[in-house]
Structure formats: structure tokens, C-alpha cells
């Protein structure tokens, strides 16, 4: 799984005592935006066969942003592959370092590290504020009544209904 928000969400749901399946569903839902990035990138990259199979793994927020910011298609492709390679290398090295380092820590709470993931997410969730706030409120309200992990699935369902049917096109 190479898509950061999905990784965080999966760990977050399991860490909160949720089932692995609620975590997996949340991770997949968070990965859905990558399909739209792929759609945007398909004509730009024009990759087939093995190259498409490799390219798909690095269709991400960062590579899409870097690729579509260029006017020249050749520069776009270079930006996509360079960003993808750098991210894939350093993200996974960072993940490995984190896994090894936290095994050495007796109690991550002492360093306040359990407060770090929510702080990291703040950056990603800045637009549109109203939807973010509504989602947070719904999740908190239903949390005492359903198994861990399920609040996120309820929020996903509601926001999908809102997006599909809630507003005039």
C-alpha cells in the first residue's frame, strides 16, 4: 500500500481497536481519489504495458501535482517519474526507520507521539472547512454507539450521498 493517508487511516482504525476490515475499507475509500488522478494523468503520461503497471504504483497527490504543474508534456512526464521515484524511496525508508525506532521506544506516549498523527492530518484536511467540521461532528456523535472504525464508514457513506445527490449539479 503506497498512499500515505490510507496507511495512516488503516493504522489509526486498528490502533483504536477497530476491526481490520473497517480499517481496510477506510484505506480503500481514501485511495479512491487516486483513480481520478490516474484519469487526469492517463493522457499526459501515455503509458502502456509494464510501464503503466509501474506508473500506477506512484499515482499520488504529490506526483499528480508535480506533473500537471508543467506546460510541456516531456517535463510533465519527467516530473511524474522523478517525484514518484524519490517519494517511493524515501517514504519507505522513513517507514522502515519508524518501525525500527518505535520498537526501541518503551512508551511512545511519553514523547507525545500518539498526538502526532492527528496533527499531521490537519494539513491534508484544510478544504472545504464546513465538510471537515460536519464529518468530525458526525464521527464523534456516533462513536459511542458503534464499533471502532465504523464512524469513519458512516462518514464516508454520508459524504458520498451528499456529493452525489445533495447539491444541484
Amino acid at each position: 500500500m503506497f498512499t500515505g493517508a490510507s496507511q495512516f487511516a488503516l493504522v489509526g482504525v486498528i490502533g483504536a481497536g477497530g476491526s481490520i476490515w473497517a480499517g481496510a475499507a477506510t484505506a480503500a475509500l481514501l485511495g479512491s481519489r487516486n483513480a481520478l488522478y490516474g484519469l487526469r494523468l492517463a493522457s499526459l503520461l501515455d503509458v502502456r504495458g509494464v510501464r503503466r503497471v509501474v506508473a500506477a504504483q506512484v499515482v499520488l497527490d504529490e506526483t499528480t501535482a508535480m506533473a500537471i504543474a508543467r506546460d510541456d508534456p516531456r517535463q510533465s512526464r519527467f516530473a511524474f517519474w522523478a517525484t514518484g521515484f524519490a517519494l517511493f524511496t524515501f517514504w519507505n525508508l522513513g517507514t522502515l526507520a519508524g518501525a525500527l525506532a518505535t520498537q526501541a521506544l518503551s512508551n511512545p506516549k511519553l514523547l507525545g507521539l500518539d498526538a502526532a498523527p492527528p496533527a499531521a492530518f490537519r494539513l491534508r484536511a484544510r478544504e472545504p472547512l464546513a465538510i471537515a467540521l460536519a464529518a468530525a461532528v458526525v464521527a464523534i456523535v456516533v462513536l459511542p454507539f458503534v464499533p471502532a472504525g465504523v464512524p469513519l464508514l458512516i462518514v464516508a457513506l454520508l459524504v458520498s450521498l451528499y456529493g452525489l445527490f445533495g447539491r444541484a449539479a
Partner: protein
Amino acid sequence: MIWAGVLIASASCYALKLAGLSLPQRWLQDPRVQRTVPLIPIALLAALVATQTFSTGQHLVLDVRAAALVVAIVAVVLRAPFLVVVAAASLTAALLRLL
């Protein structure tokens, strides 16, 4: 069991990316799909932040994590770099727990 879930989630995430590159363009170009998909991460990440900050298991709790979140929000509003935001929030929680 956990690894089965991880593998299935990984396969799903990869399949979504490949689908974006491979499916006929018009399948994903429906305006309602275009509008809805970007909303999903916003709502899910906000909900994840809220539940990770204000709950332990199935109980709602208000503890040092709430203070850490406030510090993080202030840091973001002040346009602090990402690592500063995370470090400030972690430090807040650590210091408050020491008290």
C-alpha cells in the same frame, strides 16, 4: 488476519490507481463522480482526526490530545512548516503529561 486485511487494502489501493490510468475516460468523467471523490478524503481525514483526538476505544474523552490539536491548528494557521506542526503538537502532549 491483520495481514490479510493489509494485503486486501493494499491491492484495492493499487487497483484504484491502475483503474484511473486504464478505464475509459468517460467512466470517471461523470460530473457527480468528479465532485464527490475529492470530498471523501476531506471528510474521512477530518473524522479520523476527531476520533483519534477525542476518544479512547468507544469512550469520548477530553485529554492532552485536544490541547495538542489546538496547538497544531494554531501552527497551521501561522503557516508553520509541516514538521514544526507535528513536533509542536507532540511536545505539547508530552509536556502536559509530565505535569
